[in-house]
């Protein structure tokens, strides 16, 4: 193992992850060592290894280490070069990407504009019933490989959110050779299909998934040393939070990205573990159905929003981990404005005066924290003379009733969050949006959201989103309660780590001491 000076170690750390500015939660002692296996706990088992059909947050974890996407982000959510080194809108409906040169896929195929075209078109035109990237690229008309390192994307209409989409799964590049040869087995065994720091080794469902170092990874650390440092990563699905904690304590796993609020204090005081967190892009609360009684009456929606004690939920269910939510824009987002606090302290008296004496059914997932939250809300609203009936259901049924049938009064829900504020708002609150379960409709909001999509001026967009948020929250379109944090617990050996608010662990620059 080559030894590198301490000064360089710091620089290495700064340059290792995401290629951009790093300030958040990074730790580094000594100089990076090559080698070792990192064992990571996954809180649910994944369904697929193909970004085309992926729907789970947990899957993105793995993808970011196997595949690269066109753009990257840093801890402040600024776009940074990844597989694309430059990007610009030559006009509102044309996006030109300049690609990184000299990159090869793990199977030896060259990465170039043709590969980008193949991938984007695959996502856009896939006939797989579970294809999930079409809506991410809905504004794309066509893709041209202008030359080997230039891609021109023609849009149907201006769309400022496209860049954010290209950071995530819709921008992940797979080898065209692999796509052709592996076909359906991309889902279970995408051998050498990406350009990422790690290569796929094997996946034994419910047991483990193994990745190994890509010896030809294009990114180097700032001293020119090859990345990644780790030999292998092993993901293990452990669905029980208590089991994850136990495995961390016994050293069976090195890292986990979930922890129950009740265990945070114990983890922080455990000298063998390191706890980090960063505000999340996601939010939580419950949705109201505005297309049917009782919440077709806006006064009742407002009454509920007034009576909820958000801080109590944060303390009792979340054990203080996280923050009170004031809207779909969280503190991790560039569009955040901390002066916006429409519903802050609960006001049962005002709620009672606005609307009282009615009842509704609150549906929750069959998960302990949700049920606990539901019971708290029940008790809180009772103080305002509003009766809540609780109905825990399993997730599939709940999604069916809310998303498809729109048959519910209120339902506890949450959103993992997207980099662009549009991803937290448009589909949810625009009339007819695909995630607008409660059929909320306000033409002013619609206009604001559409305008925000059409311009790339960030300060203008921030203003528009703030206005939209004010109306959405004030109307009680959705009752926001608490925003989670992105936690991360690792053993003391894990170094070079950096937390990014999208909650995804990127392991290219991580090493074990």
């Amino acid at each position, binding site marked *: 193992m080559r030894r590198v000076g301490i000064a360089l170690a710091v620089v290495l750390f700064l340059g290792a992850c995401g290629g951009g500015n790093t300030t958040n939660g990074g730790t580094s002692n000594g100089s990076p060592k090559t080698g070792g296996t990192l064992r990571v706990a996954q809180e649910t088992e994944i369904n697929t290894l193909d970004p085309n059909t992926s729907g789970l947050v947990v899957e993105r974890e793995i993808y970011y280490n196997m595949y690269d996407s066109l753009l990257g982000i840093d801890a402040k959510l600024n776009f940074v070069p990844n597989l694309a080194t430059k990007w610009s809108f030559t006009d509102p409906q044309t996006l030109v990407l300049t690609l990184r040169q000299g990159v090869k896929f793990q199977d030896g195929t060259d990465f170039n504009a043709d590969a980008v075209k193949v991938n984007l078109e695959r996502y856009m035109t896939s006939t797989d019933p579970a294809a999930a990237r079409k809506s991410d690229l809905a504004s794309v008309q066509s893709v041209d490989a202008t030359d080997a390192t230039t891609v021109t994307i023609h849009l149907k209409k201006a769309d400022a959110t496209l860049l954010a989409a290209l950071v995530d799964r819709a921008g992940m590049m797979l080898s065209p050779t692999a796509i052709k040869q592996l076909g359906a087995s991309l889902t279970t065994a995408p051998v050498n299909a990406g350009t990422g720091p790690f290569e796929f080794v094997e996946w034994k469902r419910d047991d483990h998934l193994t990745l190994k170092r890509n010896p030809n990874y294009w990114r180097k650390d700032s001293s020119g040393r090859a990345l990644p440092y780790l030999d292998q990563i092993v993901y293990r699905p452990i669905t029980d939070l208590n089991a994850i904690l136990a495995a961390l304590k016994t050293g069976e796993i090195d890292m986990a990205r979930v922890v129950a609020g009740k265990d945070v204090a114990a983890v922080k005081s455990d000298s063998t573990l390191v706890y980090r967190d960063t505000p999340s892009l996601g939010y939580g609360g419950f949705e109201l159905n505005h297309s049917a009684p009782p919440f077709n009456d806006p006064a009742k929606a407002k009454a509920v929003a007034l009576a909820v004690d958000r801080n109590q939920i944060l303390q009792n269910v979340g054990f203080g981990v996280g923050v009170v939510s004031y809207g779909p824009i969280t503190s991790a987002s560039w569009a955040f404005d901390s002066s916006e606090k429409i519903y802050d302290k609960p006001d049962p008296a005002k709620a009672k005066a606005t609307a009282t004496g009615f009842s509704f059914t609150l549906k929750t997932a069959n998960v302990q924290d949700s049920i606990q939250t539901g019971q708290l809300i029940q008790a809180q609203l009772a103080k305002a003379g509003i009766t809540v009936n609780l109905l825990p259901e399993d997730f*599939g049924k709940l*999604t069916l009733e809310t998303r498809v049938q729109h048959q519910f009064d209120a339902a506890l829900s949450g959103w993992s969050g997207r980099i662009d504020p549009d991803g937290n708002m448009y589909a949810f609150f625009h009339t007819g949006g695909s995630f607008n379960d409660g059929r909320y409709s306000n033409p002013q909001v619609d206009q604001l959201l559409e305008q925000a999509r059409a311009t790339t001026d960030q300060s203008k967009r921030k203003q528009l989103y703030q206005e939209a948020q004010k109306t959405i929250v004030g109307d009680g379109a959705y009752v926001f309660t608490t925003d989670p944090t992105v936690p991360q617990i690792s053993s003391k050996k894990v170094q070079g780590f950096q937390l990014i608010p999208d909650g995804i662990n990127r392991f290219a620059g991580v090493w074990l001491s």
Partner: protein
Amino acid sequence: MIEYIVRRLALMVPTAFLVTVGVFMLIHLIPGDPATVILAESYTPEAAAAIHKDLGLDRPLPQQYLIYMGKLAHGDLGTSVRNRLPVTQAIGERLPATLELGAAALLWSLLVAIPLGAIAALRRGRALDVIASGLTVAGISIPNFVLGILLILLFGLVLRLLPVGGFVALTDSPPDNLTRLILPAIALGTFGAASNMRFTRSSMVEVLGQDYIRTARAKGAGWWRVVNRHALKNALIPVVTIVGLQIGAILEGALVTETVFSWPGVGKLAVESIFSKDFPVVQGIVLMAALSYMVANLLVDLAYAWLDPRISYS
């Protein structure tokens, strides 16, 4: 005898048929849409419709049943909705863990039941017997998940003697596997231990009252010699048949025990699949459970009949 076997087998056919219908109807009564599970956050009605078509869910129920039966005839139990694996494979991967747990539970139940039953029979009517009797009733009164949680509390958290939950394959590391096996096996097997104990005792008592035993005693043989040489073997015959019946209790108990201990077996798979609307997997497991239960019952009846000629079949 042969006649009996043939008749029983013949009667099994319509019952098995009824079972498939029952399972099918039951599973399809469960409301909920597997498409929501598959698509999760990326759900759109169009994608859902495509999945329904893909899974054949858009056809009328009787037709779906016939397709199902057709596949069944070829040993194809369908495909899991959650992860696109063939159901037979999904179950097959989890089966070893459940078999291991079941075997361990059975072992525990016999290890506890036979000696205790024998002792209780020998000390019949005395203090030990009464205590054992009370223990037996207690043993069948404690739900296996409560017992499991209490064991976790005591041995895992208070005494910190054993690891709690999780699973390491036997092939990977026998010691790690076995230390994690102990608590769930006890939790699952205690109910059987209690019932078996009672039965061992009563059959022992019966046997001990037999003439040939008294003869042996009259000849001066010590109690233990009598038990080991003569009584035990004959008394065990009904116990063996009882064990066969424990299969049902173990199948049921495994559901909850595996959930409590995060033991990745078929039981836990069943619970997960029920809650995630994975119809094909639930169907497959219930069908398998029902059929193996039926076969086990048949074998037990046959074994019992063969061993104990006093039972007749009109």
